[in-house]
């Protein structure tokens, strides 16, 4: 036995032999290490008692199987001398003599404790994942991505460095990748959202049918994120149900290491149609509101507008009278009459353009987005308010910075903001009975590139509750709805800007800050 024991000590597995009664006959070096029992302590002991062998089935059953079949292999849990649990992969062989009597049982064992722990952790994690996948109120898809990867990887070898640009330029290729992306699994919420009666209706399908043409840019973003290993992508887009009807969704792609190894993308889809509808309704409501306020503000300016139109009308009448007198002469001066007639036409056109401008301000339109000059808007407003300013004896100062960048926005809306601020200033100065009333417009740019327009007056300054200035229905004026400033703020913020008011030495200042066009 001695030579064999030496060899056994060189083996990297635990080798233990025992007799028919289960008592330890040999115990190699690895067994000492593994179980913590020195050879002398283990020899002669009952193996299963010593190590507290445990299995799902009783150990006796395993022994019985061993005797019947001559071998057994499986996993056994044992406790070491220091009380630690180990999971072992064991193999037993029964050695018999020529008469068939059991001589001894030879066991080899390998410690698989760590591997088992990892497997268990994975199984638990997988279980949890599956539970969440199914239970989530978010629609989840697992999409088999391997076919798509196979299409994309060769692109690098072909010299494509900007994947996004390539995909945008090759939409047929993009469609082809959609056809290679196969639905591997979907949860209950996904079935509901996309209108499938059961999972079989979606599993195995390629994803092309779910992507409308206009949503391809979002799909391209997802592909690029996958290939550049960005772990999470979130974007808004529109997808199609099984029946082809569109849904507004929030679309997220989770690209965890593990999923990537499996060649699978986890896609989350949240239905935001309700939110989109609410946003749409809110915007329409705001537009109606702004329209109502615009019309109401126009009411305040009616006297000024009527006067502006009456001037050219009076001129036309006067020129008409003059023409009639010339024509009543014995020798009419036709050159004079011609001049008068020409002037009448010009005045009629001027009246028409004033009316058209007023109509444009009162009309309900979709806001436009064009490049505008802040300085020109101020000049427009000065022209529009010229009469009102004269009537109220308000001097006007313009400090307009030349070569200012443009702002992107709706001309009518921004004019409305400036007019409102100016009218507020004029009314404040009038009510306070200020002599030497001055309205100052200053344009400029901030270091961060944003544009500013300041409207200053030398009236009494802001009311005692400046924080409520922009609240709806807050007004200190005897007449007026208090809608002007809140509407101004809505418009300015819709243009990506800010508006603020403050009292300054000798009056009030309102500053509108707007982003410049890029």
């Amino acid at each position, binding site marked *: 036995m001695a030579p064999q024991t030496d060899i056994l000590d060189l083996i990297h597995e635990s080798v233990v032999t025992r007799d028919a009664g289960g008592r330890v006959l040999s115990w190699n070096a690895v067994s000492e290490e593994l179980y913590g029992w020195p050879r002398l302590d283990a020899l002669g002991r009952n193996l299963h008692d010593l190590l507290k062998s445990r299995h799902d089935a009783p150990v006796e059953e395993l022994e019985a199987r061993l005797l019947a079949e001559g071998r057994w292999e499986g996993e056994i849990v044992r406790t070491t001398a220091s009380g630690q649990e180990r999971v072992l992969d064991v193999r037993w062989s029964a050695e018999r003599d020529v008469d068939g009597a059991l001589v001894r049982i030879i066991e080899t064992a390998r410690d698989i404790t760590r591997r088992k722990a990892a497997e268990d952790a994975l199984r638990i994690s997988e279980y949890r994942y599956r539970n969440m996948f199914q239970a989530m109120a978010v629609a989840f898809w697992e999409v088999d991505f391997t076919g798509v990867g196979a299409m994309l990887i060769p692109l690098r070898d072909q010299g494509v460095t900007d994947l996004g640009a390539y995909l945008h330029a090759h939409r047929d290729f993009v469609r082809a990748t959609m056809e290679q992306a196969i639905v591997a699994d979907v949860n209950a919420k996904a079935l509901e959202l996309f209108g499938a009666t059961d999972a079989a209706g979606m599993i195995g399908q390629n994803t092309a049918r779910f992507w409308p043409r206009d949503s391809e840019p979002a799909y391209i973003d997802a592909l690029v994120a996958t290939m550049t290993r960005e772990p999470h992508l979130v974007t808004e887009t529109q997808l199609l149900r099984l029946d082809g009807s569109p849904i507004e969704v929030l679309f997220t792609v989770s690209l965890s290491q593990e999923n990537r190894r499996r060649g699978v993308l986890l896609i989350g889809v949240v239905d935001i149609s309700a939110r989109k509808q609410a946003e749409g309704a809110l915007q329409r409501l705001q537009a109606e509101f702004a329209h109502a306020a615009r019309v109401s503000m126009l009411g305040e300016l009616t006297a000024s507008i009527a*006067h502006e139109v*009456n*001037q*050219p*009308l*009076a*001129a*036309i*009448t*006067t*020129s008409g*009278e*003059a*023409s009639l*007198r*010339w024509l009543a002469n014995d020798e009419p001066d036709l050159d*004079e009459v011609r*001049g*008068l007639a020409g*002037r009448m036409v*010009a*005045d009629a056109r*001027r009246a028409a353009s004033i009316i058209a401008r007023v109509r444009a301000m009162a009309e309900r339109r979709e806001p436009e987005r064009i490049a505008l000059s802040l300085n020109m808007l101020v000049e427009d407003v000065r022209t529009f308010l010229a009469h009102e300013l*004269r*009537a109220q004896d308000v001097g006007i100062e313009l400090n307009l910075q030349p070569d200012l960048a443009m702002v992107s926005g709706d001309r009518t809306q921004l004019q409305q903001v400036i007019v409102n601020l100016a009218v507020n200033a004029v009314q404040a100065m009038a009510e306070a009975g200020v002599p030497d009333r001055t309205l100052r417009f200053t344009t400029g740019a901030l270091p961060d590139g944003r544009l500013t327009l300041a409207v200053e007056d030398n009236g009494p300054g802001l009311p005692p509750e400046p924080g409520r200035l922009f609240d709806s229905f807050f007004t200190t004026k005897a007449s007026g709805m208090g809608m002007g400033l809140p509407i101004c703020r809505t418009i300015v913020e819709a243009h990506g800007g800010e508006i603020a008011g403050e009292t300054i030495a000798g009056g009030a200042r309102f500053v509108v800050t707007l982003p410049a066009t890029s």
Partner: protein
Amino acid sequence: MPAKPLIAIVEDDDSLRPALIGLMRSLGYDGAGFVSAEDFLAADALGTADCLVTDLQLPGISGLDLAARLGGERERPLPVILVTARTEKSIDERGEAAGLFCLLRKPFEADDLISCIRRALDS
């Protein structure tokens, strides 16, 4: 009068001023236009005009202030006809105090303006 009467028109609206001058010419008068009271005062017209037609609202001092200032400017006072769109009663009183020859409300009938001017020239 040997020469044609000169009617000074002080009106800042660029449509109405030329139209009024045209009307004066159709009546056989000469018309001279000014965009503000200051322009009129600075020009020679003060001595040579036979009648002044002015709007109330002007860029600098008002037509009423102009009329009041002209009160003691010459031997023979310059008749001033004030035209205005404002409707306040107070303007009538102030107009009287300033010695206006005529006060007309806009929109005015051309005939009314013409008869005022004729009476002013005859006085």
